[in-house]
């Protein structure tokens, strides 16, 4: 069992030295905060992750969520986790005082999400969904809906869900068939339909569950433009806040999954008895837009979930590699010489380093995005807001898709470091690999993220979003070039940046000439290349800070040297890969398009 799930020194480095989070306190919303409150929140989140989430990690996998044919029970340890998080204010730390929060930056909320996922990813699901539902009501719901549900959701008295997927409708949300018809005798709609894969769809954690459901009203236009958002409680809530009648939401089963077993993934039937009441959020037919407005951060959080698990796996691998004695130095000739810890074998060290680079690079990117989001909400200049928003739009698909795929690969390496023991369920890394897989699937499958990046984000506002991001990357590269020891690294990353620009222009021409299919057929490869640049850039940003500290003289030489060499390693292995991809893209590789399904 690892002693450590994440490196808090690195986290403090990112929060304060790289992202200068404290500077937010100059804006009114954050003015009560200080380095001290930010640090205390971060440290407490780690404590909770380590002492409350983590001890039951394997238990969650063995016990799983249970369905007895009628109702769902969460793993026993989940109740205490929920209680601690609800009482501690961890469902919505960033929410305003008026809504029961403490106005922390969303960066702190994101960090807490990361840490809780380091500890127990299935457990953390229940929190995130509750926040999501509450946040929807807060942003788009009527005063009545807010009064009935919001405070109770943020306080953890109720739990929430996000309900989109149906048995026959996943990615293609616009094809969903769940319908809502206006009730003749009330302010509500009657819902009818089946939903599947609903995380936290049913459980015994809270006295009520509040579903945020997408459905189509009668006569609404087809496709995504005809979807509306509804609030559907499991039990109706009376005007005085007391729990009323059952609302005709039936649980028909839960999934038996590869991982994430402690999180109940339910199939739900709404309106089997014809009396499932649903309350409209905002305007008719705007449902998907509402969900999408919250999507950026939700997707950044999905990347966080994945990399949280990868962080825990990395620390398992690091500890194991330091203590597992096996073999001798490759030059040793003496069979009686004592064996060495495997961390001394360069191949093992490289595996560890690659994991570390993914964890620290992705975490850096996520926290950067959250920081950009905070900044966007803090500043008042509309132009600056737009610029920040575009940065976030560009980086979101990378956070979600690259974050989840790189995390999975990273955990694969963590298992590899453990040898046969890693394949055994005795060690937690096997479970981590299983748990982590889902993050490339839900919240928009990774292939869809790639289409989003290349199809929507790159051409966004005539390429302005891409330019805004490029300018940030160039700024960091220029800063690094000023520091002699980082010059070669900066040059290397710049060469990838140039290739990405070239490849993007080449693809852009395809797009402009109407060859949309060809433009998009390598979107996934494009996203990976783009992410290699984004992560190299983030690690370079960290290296610049580290180099400056070292130049000024530091007692923590190992720590800062480690940061610089991690950046060097990531770029060393991934820049050439990115460049090769760029060349493939400019060479119009199009097998994916031309290979006919019948040739399989």
């Amino acid at each position, binding site marked *: 069992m690892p*002693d*450590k799930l994440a490196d*808090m*020194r690195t986290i403090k480095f990112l929060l304060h030295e790289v992202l200068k989070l404290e500077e937010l306190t100059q804006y009114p919303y954050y003015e*009560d905060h*200080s380095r*001290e*409150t930010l*640090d*205390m*929140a971060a440290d*407490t989140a780690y*404590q*909770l992750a380590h002492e*409350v989430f983590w001890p039951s990690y394997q238990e969650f996998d063995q016990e799983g969520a249970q369905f007895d044919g009628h109702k769902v029970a969460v793993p026993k340890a989940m109740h205490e986790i929920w209680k*601690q998080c609800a*009482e*501690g*204010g*961890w469902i919505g*730390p960033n929410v305003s005082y008026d809504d029961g*929060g*403490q106005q*922390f930056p969303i960066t702190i909320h994101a960090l807490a999400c990361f840490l809780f996922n380091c500890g127990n990813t299935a457990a953390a699901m229940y929190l995130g969904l509750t926040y999501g539902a509450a946040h929807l009501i807060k942003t788009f719901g009527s005063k009545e809906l807010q009064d009935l549900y919001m405070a109770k959701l943020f306080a953890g008295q109720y739990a929430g869900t996000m309900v989109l997927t149906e048995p026959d409708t996943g990615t293609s949300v616009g094809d969903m068939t769940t319908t809502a018809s206006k009730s003749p005798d009330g302010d509500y709609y009657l819902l009818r339909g089946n939903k599947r894969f609903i995380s936290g769809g049913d459980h015994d954690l809270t006295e009520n569950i509040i579903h945020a459901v997408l459905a189509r009203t009668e006569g609404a236009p087809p496709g995504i433009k005809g979807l509306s958002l509804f609030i559907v409680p499991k039990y109706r809530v009376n005007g005085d806040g007391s729990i009323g009648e059952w609302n005709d939401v039936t649980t028909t089963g839960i999934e038996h999954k590869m991982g994430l077993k402690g999180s109940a993934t339910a199939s739900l039937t709404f309106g089997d008895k014809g009396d499932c009441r649903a309350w409209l959020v905002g305007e008719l037919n705007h449902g998907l837009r509402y969900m999408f407005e919250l999507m950026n951060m939700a997707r950044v959080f999905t990347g966080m979930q994945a990399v949280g698990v990868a962080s825990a796996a990395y620390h398992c691998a690091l500890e194991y590699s330091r*203590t597992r004695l096996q073999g001798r130095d490759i030059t040793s000739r003496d069979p009686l010489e004592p064996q060495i810890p495997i961390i001394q074998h360069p191949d093992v060290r490289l595996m560890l380093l690659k994991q570390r680079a993914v964890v620290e690079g992705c975490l850096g990117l996520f926290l950067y995005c959250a920081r950009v989001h905070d900044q966007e909400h803090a500043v008042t200049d509309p132009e600056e807001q737009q610029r920040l928003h575009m940065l976030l739009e560009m980086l979101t698909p990378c956070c979600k898709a690259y974050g989840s795929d790189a995390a999975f690969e990273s955990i694969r390496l963590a298992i590899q470091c453990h040898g046969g023991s890693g394949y055994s369920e005795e060690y937690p890394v096997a479970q981590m690999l299983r748990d982590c897989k889902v993050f490339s699937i839900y919240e928009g499958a990774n292939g869809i993220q790639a289409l989003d990046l290349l199809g929507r984000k790159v051409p966004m506002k005539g390429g302005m979003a891409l330019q805004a991001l490029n300018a940030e990357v160039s700024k960091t590269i220029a800063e690094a070039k000023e520091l002699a020891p980082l010059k070669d690294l900066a040059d290397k990353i710049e060469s990838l940046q140039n290739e990405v620009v070239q490849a993007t222009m080449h693809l852009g021409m395809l797009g402009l000439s109407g060859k949309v299919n060809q433009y998009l057929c390598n979107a996934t490869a494009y996203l990976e290349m783009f992410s290699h640049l984004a992560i190299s850039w983030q690690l370079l940003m960290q290296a610049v800070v580290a180099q400056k500290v070292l130049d000024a003289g*530091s*007692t*923590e030489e190992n*720590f800062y040297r480690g940061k610089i060499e991690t950046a060097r390693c990531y770029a060393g292995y991934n820049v050439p890969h990115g460049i090769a991809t760029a060349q493939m893209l400019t060479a119009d590789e199009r097998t994916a398009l031309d290979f006919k399904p019948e040739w399989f």
Partner: protein
Amino acid sequence: MKVVVLIKRVPDTASELQVAADGKSVVTGGLKFVMSPYDEHAVELAIQLKESHGAEVVVLSAGPPETKEIIRSALAMGADSGILVDTAQLGALTCRGTARLLAAALADLGADLVVAGKQAVDDDAAQVPERVAELLGIPHASVITRFELSGTTASVDREIEGGQYTLELPLPALFTTQKGINTPRYPTLPNIMKAKKKEIREVPAAQLGLAADSLSAQATTEAMTLPRQQRLCRVIEGDNAQRVKELVRVLHMEEKVL
């Protein structure tokens, strides 16, 4: 009722310690510091008394200015105010000096009850609170696993070798807490925000009117080394009877643990 909790800032035992170049001290750069874990139980005990008896809870610590961070943590758990005896201007302190500083700071606080962790996890000396009680001339009981208050009498259980020892002490008195007495709470986010507004009074050590030689260290550190970590695994072969015999022999003769 006023409860004063003595707490100490110590390196997190989970952090990797390095001995400094002088061979006599620990590298502190990059080291994470926390409230000594046994002290958390003392803070929890005090906060429970606040909840049950309306006690006022003051945390007191002697240390460098950074000690305010752990005082703030105690405030975030629910304590009312803090006092830092700032020792930045003093040389190395040993238990004797620290106890004298704390006793001097306590002198006019009017504490009905003083609680502390049974030992700090850095030096593991387990001396300061008892010395404080002696200096103040109040009764004390260490390593308690139960605490109950009725009127001005405290009934406690002490953990002793192979058993348990129940005592009653009149207040004011001092107690040190052992794990198991309670589960320290985590600071909640609302309490973290409230803690920011609570007062931490800083008292420079010099203001306590103690003569420098009464604080000076009575021992000097000659050298410091990290414990050597060794993991030896040995498989004993043979049938059960042989293996048991061999195991007993190894434990008795070689490892000398039996």
